[in-house]
């Protein structure tokens, strides 16, 4: 039997949701690993875009920053940052935007700006970067997050980027946004999808060995479950080897 960590499960579960036809706007960290595992396994023709302007990139190692030379070296082409945000993101070519956050609520609203009051912050976080417009311009949004009480909260301190707002059709009714928004949340413990009506994230599959108590103990809102909750298929040997090879190549490259 193959051993794997919750992080590995999260990355691999996320990678499985991507297809050859996707054009992904990729962030650093788990999204980058997931997208590249997809590219190196079942979706070799997936298009990966990093906000530094690298379009259609195929890095051999994971970038430490969003603008590593490796991304440019392997890209179809590299455009300016204004062009990236105007033509490629706002122009509607991104099918999947991949976001993470310091705080997430049950409707997929994300906070990477500030803990506490904006003008008197307890903790000042890095800010939104590309997220505010990725969240509304990408056809759909995938979110990855490790579960923790301080991260998965009833209400985010600050709407860095819009998910489903207050739920239901709030996204379109209040803000006029016609893209789908968050369609999946992949954590280190489970896979969640929005309820079709309320848009609240509900658990659709639980990773191997994880209990519902584990889930609730690391989530700040009262969890709802889909009618038919599955167990997330464990990583295949190919998936796991691909991820680990990628990570070891990356570790070697970054220690140079």
């Amino acid at each position, binding site marked *: 039997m193959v051993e794997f960590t919750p992080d590995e499960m999260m990355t691999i579960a996320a990678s499985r949701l991507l297809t050859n036809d996707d054009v992904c706007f990729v962030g650093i960290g788990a999204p980058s690993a997931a997208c590249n595992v997809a590219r190196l396994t079942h979706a070799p023709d997936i298009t990966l875009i990093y906000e530094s302007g690298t379009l259609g990139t195929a890095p051999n190692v994971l970038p430490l920053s969003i603008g590593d*030379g490796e991304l440019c070296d392997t890209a179809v082409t590299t455009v300016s940052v204004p062009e990236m945000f*105007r033509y490629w993101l706002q122009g509607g070519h991104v099918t999947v935007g991949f976001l993470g956050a310091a705080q997430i609520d049950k409707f997929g609203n994300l906070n990477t700006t500030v803990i506490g009051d904006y003008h008197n912050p307890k903790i000042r976080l890095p800010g939104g970067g590309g997220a*505010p*417009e990725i969240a*509304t311009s990408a056809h759909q949004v995938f979110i990855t997050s490790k579960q923790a009480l301080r991260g998965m909260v009833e209400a985010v301190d600050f709407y860095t980027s819009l998910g489903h707002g207050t739920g239901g059709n709030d996204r379109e009714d209040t803000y006029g946004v016609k893209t789908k928004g968050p369609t999946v949340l992949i954590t280190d413990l489970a896979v969640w999808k929005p309820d079709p009506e309320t848009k609240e994230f509900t658990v659709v599959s639980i990773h191997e060995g994880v209990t519902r108590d584990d889930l609730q103990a690391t989530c700040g809102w009262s969890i709802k479950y889909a009618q038919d909750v599955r167990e997330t298929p464990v990583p295949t040997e190919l998936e796991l080897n691909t991820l680990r090879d990628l990570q070891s190549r990356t570790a070697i490259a970054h220690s140079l």
Partner: protein
Amino acid sequence: MSLQDAVAKYIKDGQLIALEGFTHLIPHAAAHEIIRQGRRDLTAIRMTPDIIYDQMVGMGCIKKLIFSFMGNPGVGLLKRVRDSIEHEYPSAITYEEYSHSAMANAYEAGAAGLPCAIFRGFLGAELAKVNPNIKHVICPFTGEKLAAVPSVQPEVSVIHAQRANKRGEVLIEGIIGVQKEAVLAAQKAIVTVEEIVDDFDDMHPNTCILPHFVVDAICVVPGGAHPSYSHNYYQRDNAAYKEWAAISADRDLFAKWMEDNVMSVGPEVFEGRVAHLRGAK
């Protein structure tokens, strides 16, 4: 022109300046020169304030930041900036915050000589409520409400580029970021380069080249982007970025590091810092 002379000539206390570079070609040497010359009360624009603005804030050069993502890329937070925001150490700074899309559009509009940029942005995003400079215009054809932000128009922009030629033209290639826009939007532009060559023969016809009449000072500083990188010259020093987390986290360690590595040296040290990063790939 020497970097010392260029900074002394063009950068004054209290100015609105931009040091740009999107992970690639970040003008570290120029930032250190600004710190050494003791500039104060700068309003500093940058999409991605990272180590150099952490250093400038920690050394008290900056009174206000205009930005869209403030972090040590791939590593973590900027502890000197946080110390300033959360504890007013060494002094308080204010800040004006946007998204990447907003700032990229604002640079583009600045380069285009426009007073503002319009784009589809901040839908449901709370920055629009806390930043009074995020406004809206209505499309006169469709009635759509679009976000509007003031264009970026620095008094001085500073970038690092691969090379210049003897006619004063500047080549930028690879991840070009918003550097062209930063230069075109500014009243004055300082460019540090790896080297000056005779000419740019045999370049691809659509290469990003800044003509001489938009550049005010070209300063040769080999390695001047370190620990950032210069495509085709040397690689990113990822180890240095990771080490910065510990240096930045401690006030005393930071002060000593700055004294040893910035205040008591000059731009000439950069060449040695990238020696081990050349030709690696």
